[in-house]
């Protein structure tokens, strides 16, 4: 089985407080895989470590069996594209110029007409050609997200990483963005790894789901096997009803198991994971070998 994206033993922490603890997985070509988990579980950090926006303390990332840690920035940008959650610009730029920036790994000082044609092509593909001359900051959240996806698309990479692309969008735009990403996987045979909060969106669109907590992968596999009521209760502390909607699990949140919000600090390190892990069902024992291909 071919592997498009592989992470091996990624460890990362800020000032010696660990965020990612030995994360490994493999993703096959033309797959859409989502990372889910509570706030602070390390989803976004994992995506940034894969793109080497953050440098992991240990671990390697392979794309087509090439080691990302040995590539320079330009080389990485030719292999991996990244869509940030939002993009606040200090200074204005119009949509066309913003998308054209994605061609940077492929061009020198002057952009050729081929580069510009590539931008037009992608703007048309995403249905935002009419916005080409509008200022980026004048756009709505949904439009901005499409522009950021367009910028990543013109990088012409095989793997795209997205960091919570639907987090600020209404339900129509959530589906719009997810449909775009899903089409990229189906029609352009891209591999997509995205962090997502909405479990139902993850269920509807993903080939595989990685569930994280406290910087570790707790469950991984196809949506039906990961999104079970036991797993969700253990990871999120929320009681849910899981129903089947055209073979995809459909999650209805019922109630919090424990009051959320700040709990009394037990003293010492906040994430003393021993106790919490013992609360997980047996099937959720931490997973070492994860293949989503």
């Amino acid at each position: 089985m071919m592997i498009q994206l592989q992470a091996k033993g990624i460890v990362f922490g800020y000032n010696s407080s660990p965020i990612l603890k030995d994360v490994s997985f493999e993703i096959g070509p033309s797959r859409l895989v989502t990372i889910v988990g509570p706030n602070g579980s390390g989803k976004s950090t994992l995506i940034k470590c894969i793109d080497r926006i953050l440098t992991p303390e240990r671990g390697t990332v392979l794309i087509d069996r090439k080691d990302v840690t040995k590539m320079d920035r330009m080389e990485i940008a030719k292999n991996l594209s990244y869509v940030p959650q939002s993009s606040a610009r200090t200074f204005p730029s119009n949509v066309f110029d913003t998308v054209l920036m994605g061609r940077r790994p492929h061009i020198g000082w002057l952009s050729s007409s081929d580069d510009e044609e590539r931008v037009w092509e992608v703007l048309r593909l995403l249905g935002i050609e009419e916005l080409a001359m509008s200022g980026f900051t004048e756009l709505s959240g949904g439009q901005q997200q499409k522009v950021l996806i367009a910028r990543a698309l013109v990088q012409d990479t095989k793997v795209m990483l997205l960091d919570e692309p639907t987090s600020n969008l209404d339900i129509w735009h959530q589906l719009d963005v997810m449909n775009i990403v899903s089409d990229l996987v189906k029609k352009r045979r891209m591999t997509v790894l995205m962090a997502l909060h909405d479990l139902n969106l993850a269920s509807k669109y993903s080939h595989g789901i990685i569930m994280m907590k406290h910087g570790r992968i707790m469950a991984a596999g196809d949506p039906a096997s990961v999104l079970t009521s036991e797993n969700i209760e253990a990871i999120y502390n929320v009681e849910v009803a899981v129903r089947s909607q055209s073979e995809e699990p459909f999650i209805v949140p019922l109630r919090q198991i424990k009051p959320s919000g700040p709990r009394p600090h037990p003293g010492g390190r906040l994430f003393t994971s021993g106790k919490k892990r013992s609360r997980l069902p047996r099937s959720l024992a931490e997973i070492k070998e994860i293949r989503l291909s």
Partner: protein
Amino acid sequence: MGKTVRRSTTRSGKRSKMQEARDSFVFARYFFMLAIVALIVLLAGFIITLGPLDISVADAYRALLSRAFPGAFQVDPLTERVVWNIRFPRIVGGILAGFGLGVCGCVMQAVLKNPLASPFTLGISSGAQFGIAVAAVLGISVFGGPYLLIGNAFLFALLCSAFIIGLASVKGASSETLILAGIAVNYFFTAMSQLFRYFADDEQLRLMTSWGMGDLAAFSWSKIYIIFGVFAVCMPLLMLKAWDLNIMASGDETAKSIGVNAERVRVYILVISSLVVATVVCFTGTIAFIGLVAPHMARMILGGDHRFLIPASGILGASVLIAADGVAMNIIAPTVIPTGIMTSVIGVPFFMYLMLKGRRKEFWT
């Protein structure tokens, strides 16, 4: 998504409406830059006629051309001397200084991701001022003669930014670190200069205040050659990074994901722009307004692409500076108002007009 995919209009050889809009926008950018260059030439031709000695526009151009084509024009020797040795060096010096400050303001705002950044954010002007104080009070200078003060101003300006860049490479070159370090260094050197001023005698005080009023009177051809030499090397090096600056405005994370090593580019830009600003500052003193505002003017008119923005900021800086200098020299002649004062008096109303009138409301978001 299928319904959103449309057939490429270019296949039929026709440009879409948006593509045409973009083409005309690009054309407008080139046209605007050429127009400002033409304005500078006309302005220079007009300003050169102003002054105590009455010189007509035709005489001024004749005097200018007479050096290129000796014997082809009949020129009064006094006119020629005034044009070539006094008025023209001042205008050329003004154009170069304005260009350098505009360009450096533009790249500093981009790498520091701050619309309030200017060429002096790293404390260069207070460093130069301190260098002057050291030369005047302690008599310590690297050069003697006419470069006694200038040489020190240049070296201390560079020293000041070298310190900040060094600090940033140890602590990490984030824009916040650099701005904070710049402010701290600025205060430190200002305090040191004031300390020197406190102990200085009258002669030393006169020496200290003879520099730094921000005017163009000091320009001679030999100084212009020095500035020109520095610019010839540094400006292309700054332009090389235009793309990276475009991308860095979206934040360091995005820049990295598109292949730009944001921290390295930031240090590169700071090193080169410090060299340019130190060169300008040591000859003119602090002319504060140009480097802050010329890039904003350019951005309001041309948008955010640094391939156009860098030269346009320079050209706008040059035109505002020589226009202000022309007014400063002649408005209450024979008294000459320091150019630094007049740049603000002339530039601020124009800037306010652009701010209120500009349709691009997203500029300070």
